[in-house]
């Protein structure tokens, strides 16, 4: 069983490849990427246009699947179907489920759930994500955990954070850091600044994030632990990460699509679908995040996909929970705001959404090299579409980009050689080009 993707624009940062090539897949792996691979009878051939990008499958390293515990928000099945529709071939899920992903039983449960793509658990760093006692990290690693985090809950006690990082260093596992000093953020529900003053909402100062990044950079220096800072949002945090990387510390970072596309100025109507943690910040912060993507300070883009049921968001702004969904808009937002605006090259886009995320958490994938698993996303970079959350595969509708017009979309997804998704639009391509 062979599949040939013919004539697309192949972009693979892992081989520094960007040009029109054919990709030959056999069973679950890639056989070769080459010019004009001859077609044989045994092959299923997908003819692509040179406007269609053939890239290593996209990877989202920050997703809340809400499973176990909150099936009204999302399940492993609904969340991974949303991921596939968004062009992803692998996701990392966060441990703040009920019960928490902090023991063998819950990890076994997770593995048993139905999913057509890889789900890599990021296990809890402390028991019940309470920031008090470390989890059995070596055991959890054996069961497939790819990193440790108390995402959503900062480990406020620096001694506990040190212990967690010391174990991570021993196990050569990344500590995924949600950087927030919860005393400074307090009851804040948006960025502290001009707009929080105008709206009369309690603000979260940038320092709530940056002081924690400062602390954990130093704890990385102390312990040798690889710290991955997720959803970095403030320009002051970027400055610290840039300096730490220059010093050669084991630091990586990701940013979300919403933090590079939206600012706190959007909040004037108190739309709860724009509330998340960390909050939308200012234009100057957006500028700093984009610069950090350009110069490599930030390695990856991850969604922090955080589904909620409708009633949970239909409340006063200061009472509703933090979080927005992102799996089905991530690629479109990134292409619209970073590629079509000329801020990142196509190669950089693929690096931040596939190769980079794989490297941050040491995951398989992120490459089209011969022998690699055939996780492949086909992207139409020019396809224009309007975001309509009612069409989403996700169970949730708390999308900050509802109604936005985006340019660029995943149109075909292969996982381990199997075609999982193909956009209606792509089916028509062979007819269109004769």
């Amino acid at each position, binding site marked *: 069983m062979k599949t040939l993707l013919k004539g697309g624009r192949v972009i693979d940062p892992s081989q520094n490849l960007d040009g029109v090539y054919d990709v030959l897949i056999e069973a679950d792996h890639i056989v070769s990427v080459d010019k004009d691979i001859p077609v044989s009878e045994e092959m299923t051939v997908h003819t692509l246009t040179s406007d269609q990008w053939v890239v290593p499958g996209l990877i989202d390293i920050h997703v809340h699947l809400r499973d176990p515990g909150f099936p009204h928000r999302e399940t492993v099945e609904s969340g991974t179907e949303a991921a596939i529709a968004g062009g992803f071939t692998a996701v990392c899920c966060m441990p703040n489920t009920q019960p928490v992903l902090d023991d063998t039983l819950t990890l076994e449960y997770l593995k048993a759930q139905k999913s057509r793509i890889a789900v890599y658990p990021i296990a809890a760093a402390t028991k019940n994500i309470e920031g008090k006692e470390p989890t059995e990290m070596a055991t959890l690693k054996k069961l497939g955990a790819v990193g440790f985090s108390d995402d959503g809950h900062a480990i406020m006690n620096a001694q506990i954070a040190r212990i967690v990082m010391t174990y991570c260093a021993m196990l050569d596992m990344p500590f995924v850091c949600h950087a927030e000093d919860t005393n400074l953020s307090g009851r804040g529900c948006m960025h502290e600044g001009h707009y929080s*003053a*105008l*709206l*009369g*909402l*309690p603000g979260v100062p940038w320092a709530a994030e940056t002081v924690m990044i400062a602390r954990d950079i130093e704890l990385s220096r102390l312990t040798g632990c690889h710290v991955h800072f997720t959803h970095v949002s403030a320009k002051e945090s970027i400055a610290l990460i840039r300096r730490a990387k220059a010093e050669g510390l084991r630091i990586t970072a990701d940013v979300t699509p919403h933090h590079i596309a939206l600012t706190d100025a959007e909040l004037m*109507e*108190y739309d709860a679908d724009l509330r998340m943690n960390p909050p939308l910040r200012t234009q100057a912060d957006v500028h700093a995040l984009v610069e950090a993507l350009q110069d490599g300070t930030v390695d990856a883009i991850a969604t922090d996909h955080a589904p909620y049921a409708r*009633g949970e968001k*239909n*409340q*006063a*702004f*200061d*009472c509703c929970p933090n979080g927005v969904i992102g799996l089905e808009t991530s690629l479109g937002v990134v292409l619209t705001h970073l590629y079509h605006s000329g801020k990142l090259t196509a190669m950089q886009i693929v690096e931040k959404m596939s190769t980079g995320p794989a490297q941050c958490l040491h995951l398989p994938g992120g490459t089209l090299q011969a022998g690699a698993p055939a996780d492949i996303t086909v992207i139409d970079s020019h396809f224009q579409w309007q975001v309509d959350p009612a069409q989403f595969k996700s169970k949730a509708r708390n999308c900050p980009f509802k109604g936005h017009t985006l340019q660029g979309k995943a149109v075909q997804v292969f996982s381990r050689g199997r075609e999982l998704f193909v956009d209606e639009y792509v089916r028509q391509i062979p007819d269109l080009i004769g």
Partner: protein
Amino acid sequence: MSTIAKKTVWTRRHLVDAHSLTVEEIFEVMAEAKALAGIKVPLLAGKVIANLFYENSTRTRTSFELAAKYLSADVVNLDIATSSAQKGESLLDTAETLAAMGVNALVIRHSSSGVCQQLASHFKNRLSIINAGDGMHEHPSQALLDLYTMLEKLQTVAGKKIVIVGDILHSRVARSNLHILTKLGAEVHLVGPPTLCSNPEPLEEALEDADVVMCLRLQLERQTSGLIPSLAEYRELYGIDRQKLELAKPNVWVMHPGPMNRGVEITSDVADDSLIRQQVRNGVIVRMAILKLLLQETGG
């Protein structure tokens, strides 16, 4: 002043903030209020107005209730303590329930900033939302009655030095006043402890030649949460007394949105000579003007 001859600029269905009011709209409220001062007239007969107060309020709720009754509207006061809100019904569901019963306007006070904007976005033209104070956001009718009171005394606020003293950060009254007064060209100075007011100027500088000093109520929980070290020190630094007022213009007017902590943000003697009673009196007529503009059928 005739309200009949005046061409109306008023098209809005909701009053959720002072931030979005235009100068023309502000003056239209002032003109309507002046025309309605001291009279009762059945302009809103047949209209139903519900007061939905999720926070304690005597003055504002009574003021809105009387304003509605002086215009012959029917008024329902929802007793939140015994209503469905206590059973966990959301504000949106409560509002929809009242809308289904034919209520024309909801006057809302709530501890969460933005609920009036959220409801206005939800209901659009189906009914009117009137903000009677939402969290730390705005209290537009208070700012409009404060303006009316200042105009009575000063004729204009353009170029006047108006000092607002106290917990600016948490004050919806300060926000609404700041928007309206700056739109009309007043020189507004904000003063308070740096934990309760960003970039405050020294009180002495602000008070120099001031035309109006507006004291804000100090919520006593600001001390327990550590934002101010003690009430005594607050009084010493920011409490308005006769001695501090020496710096202002000799005929300076002192205002307070109430309820006062006599002896904390304002001394008792200053309070007794202030415009507080006039503010309360004007509150009813300004709210009559607001209700008339929002609810009276136009055209025909």
